[in-house]
């Protein structure tokens, strides 16, 4: 549906006969994936507004979208995407997605909450006057007037604001199920109807304030829940951004055309500039380059590719423009294959039942039985139907799972905002609950336990002048080793200036012909000038300075500084820790030893990772997968819970329940501790809610609950659970030992 919609909104910019028409502005929504800050807003808006034919552009940073109004006769969507691409932003046409529907639903809830809040405030104002009047000199006519006013305010407000509950309850009843919304709807409806009846009769048993407050508190819970969900869904948009790459297609006559990657068919020749992602699986036809495949393989070192070499969609062309021939369509690339594996793996997780729902399954029938029993009991005892019904309603209101419906969302909001402050973004709404149940932690190697980027190992042996000279070449290249050299120089506080006339020779290295002598940085053969075939000694780079001295620069993929600490804390707390990598056994065992992990697998393919995790699941383990590469994405989706660093491939971030930022690995511990604490706190909140019921339900059943007590008890228990939840934001937490079923 989304495809058809966007097609009609943004017609292709073929201009046959179109120029004659009166220019009618069109609007298109673009997903701009890598916007992060205020500077991005300005850059994106300026880039779009400066295009011919664009009338206005407005960025929404929270949604990572740009809404553009333009003349279809003068420009189109593709030129806009290209313009943003030149500024370094990856953009794609937006399709109508679930997250958009979600945010519309949240707006709807907020609107209803506003109305309920207004009504609740006014009705409470009137009710408090009546309660105060009952012990002073308020006469009956004024009390009656106040009741009528309350009814006039509360009834339309309830009819409007409580609709989400009514709708959910009726759809549950239609399939003959009970959910939490059934007793809520029943309580609200009965209380309102009964109160109206009592108001007409001029009696004092009016529960309108309780009914509207109930609606108000429940809407808060519903809104909090929805917001956690929206944050989770928004991340999925990134995946669309990654998949809708633009390709530069060269046809037989050498003409160049830009088209979306999904329109590519096998056999097409595609030009890929340096720095661009390869849009489709294919074979190199001409040119040589280095390809960064870290997204696919988790391997940090770029791969050298010449004519005839296979390249994969989503990998990054680093050094030089190449021409490739597509060998697969968008639907059967490796990327699409991994997305499919991931979807299949996610199915299993869909069956997870959230804590609140599990509580509701027990609670909802109990409430109904209790209400009905009260009514029948009073009827048998010989009270009139009116007293019996009023008492039954009081029971329903008191037991109404208000605190219960607030308990979990309030805890989750407190937990997610605490984690957000520590650089962890929780994406899945039920992610924290699943994280809390974990007893086994599986790490990926490259980019997860390690930093995923090489660092200079023998920096101590190299003088400042040499490093500065090497860095003056290195800044011109995007090769990970060059980046590491430049960073090492900056870390020492050296001024890094690009040497004049630096040239990058793909597959060999960098050269700068200076007056004082030639500088070279690259492979050993390249630096020594012998044209020997590459021995490919991994992990080193050679530098030739102006006086023809040669220096070896050695690199390693450094383990995150606190990796071994984190592993030992996890082990001490009783978690089983493993390492699961696609890399060579030697490299994996080295990292495992440095991080202190005893159990490791090496050379595992993406589907193999799923198998390992499925095997653990079969043994009754709840697995937390921590990984970053595209090759980890299916495993992340298959695991009971998953985390990934913010440097991870987009698709892995999409699959993960939470994403953590920064170099240290400690956020993994923090996330697990907060998840466990929030689980405990949800249970505490249930305890508080049930405690209130234990005190007030007997009173209600016995018929001693006045409308005042009903309204107060309900509000107090709601406030109590919210305040309890807020404690989670500031409490000091440590990772408690894992409970194992004995």
């Amino acid at each position, binding site marked *: 549906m989304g495809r058809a919609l966007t097609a009609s909104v943004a017609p292709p910019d073929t201009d046959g006969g179109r120029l004659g028409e009166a220019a009618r502005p069109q609007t298109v929504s673009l997903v701009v994936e890598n916007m992060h*800050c*205020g500077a991005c807003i300005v850059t994106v808006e300026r880039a779009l507004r400066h295009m011919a034919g664009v009338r*206005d552009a407005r960025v929404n940073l929270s949604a990572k979208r740009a809404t553009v109004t333009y003349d279809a006769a003068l420009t189109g969507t593709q030129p806009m995407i290209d313009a943003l691409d030149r500024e370094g932003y990856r953009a794609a046409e937006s399709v109508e997605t679930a997250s958009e529907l979600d945010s519309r639903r949240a707006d709807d809830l907020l609107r209803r909450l506003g109305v309920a809040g*207004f009504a609740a405030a006014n009705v409470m104002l009137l009710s408090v006057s009546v309660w105060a009047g009952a012990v002073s000199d308020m006469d009956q006519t004024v009390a009656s007037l106040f009741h009528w006013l309350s009814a006039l305010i509360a009834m339309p407000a309830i009819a409007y604001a409580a609709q989400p509950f009514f709708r959910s309850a009726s759809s549950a009843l239609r399939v003959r199920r009970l959910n939490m919304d059934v007793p809520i709807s029943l309580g609200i409806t009965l209380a309102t109807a009964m109160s109206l009846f009592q108001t007409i009769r001029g009696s004092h048993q009016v529960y309108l304030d309780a009914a509207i407050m109930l609606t108000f508190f429940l809407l808060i819970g519903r809104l909090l829940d929805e917001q956690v969900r929206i944050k989770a869904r928004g991340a999925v948009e990134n995946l669309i951004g990654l998949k809708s790459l633009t390709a530069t297609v060269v046809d037989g006559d050498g003409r160049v055309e830009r088209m979306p990657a999904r329109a590519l068919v096998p056999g097409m020749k595609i030009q890929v500039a340096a720095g661009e992602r390869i849009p489709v699986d294919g074979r190199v036809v001409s040119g040589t380059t280095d390809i960064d495949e870290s997204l696919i393989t988790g391997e940090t070192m770029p791969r050298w590719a010449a004519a005839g070499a296979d390249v994969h969609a989503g990998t990054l062309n680093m050094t030089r423009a190449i021409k490739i021939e597509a060998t697969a369509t968008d639907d059967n690339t490796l990327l699409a294959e991994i997305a499919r594996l991931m979807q299949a793996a996610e199915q299993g997780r869909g069956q997870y039942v959230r804590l609140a729902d599990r509580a509701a399954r027990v609670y909802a029938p109990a409430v109904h039985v209790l209400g009905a029993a009260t009514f029948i009991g009073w009827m048998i005892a010989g009270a009139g139907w009116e007293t019996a019904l009023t008492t039954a309603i009081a029971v329903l209101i008191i037991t109404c799972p208000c605190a219960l419906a607030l308990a979990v969302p309030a805890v989750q909001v407190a937990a997610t905002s605490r984690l957000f402050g520590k650089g962890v973004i929780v994406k899945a709404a039920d992610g924290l609950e699943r994280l809390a149940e974990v007893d086994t932690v599986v790490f990926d190697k490259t980019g997860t336990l390690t930093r995923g980027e090489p660092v200079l190992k023998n920096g101590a042996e190299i003088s400042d002048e040499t490093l500065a000279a090497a860095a003056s070449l290195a800044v011109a290249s995007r090769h990970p080793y060059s980046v590491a050299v430049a960073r090492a120089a900056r870390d020492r506080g050296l001024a890094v200036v690009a040497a004049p006339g630096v040239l990058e020779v793909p597959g060999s290295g960098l050269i700068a012909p200076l007056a004082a002598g030639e500088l070279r940085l690259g492979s050993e053969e390249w630096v020594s000038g012998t044209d020997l075939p590459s021995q490919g000694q991994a992990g080193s780079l050679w530098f030739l300075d102006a006086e023809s001295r040669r220096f070896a620069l050695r690199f390693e993929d450094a383990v995150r500084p606190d990796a071994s600490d984190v592993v030992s804390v996890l082990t001490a707390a009783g978690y089983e820790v493993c390492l699961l990598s696609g890399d060579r056994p030697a490299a994996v065992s080295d990292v495992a030893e440095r991080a202190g992990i005893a159990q490791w697998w090496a050379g595992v393919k993406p589907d193999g990772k799923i198998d390992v995790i499925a095997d653990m699941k079969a043994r009754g383990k709840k697995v937390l997968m921590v990984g970053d590469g595209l090759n980890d994405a299916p495993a992340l989706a298959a695991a009971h819970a998953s985390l990934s660093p913010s440097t991870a491939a987009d698709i892995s971030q999409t699959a993960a329940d939470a994403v953590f930022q920064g170099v240290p690995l400690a956020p993994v511990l923090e996330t697990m501790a907060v998840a466990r604490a929030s689980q405990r706190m949800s249970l505490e909140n249930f305890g508080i809610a049930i405690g209130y019921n234990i005190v007030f339900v007997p009173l209600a059943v016995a018929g001693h609950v006045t409308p005042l007590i009903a309204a107060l008890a309900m509000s107090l228990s709601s406030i109590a659970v919210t305040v309890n939840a807020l404690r989670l934001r500031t409490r000091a937490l440590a990772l408690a030992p894992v409970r194992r079923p004995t």
Partner: protein
Amino acid sequence: MSALIWLIPCALALGGLGLAAFLWALNSGQFSDLEGAGWRAIQDDEDADRAEGPRGRPDAR
């Protein structure tokens, strides 16, 4: 008690005013980009001249 005749309508009208303001803010998208609004305030505006054309949306600045 005669004060109630005008005090209650006053209270309701003020509350209603608040509600109307809230609904207006919600419908005009004031809450749609809570992150971006904060950033915009500290950014230098370089193309203010562009957006003040006849089509510049009122909330575009």
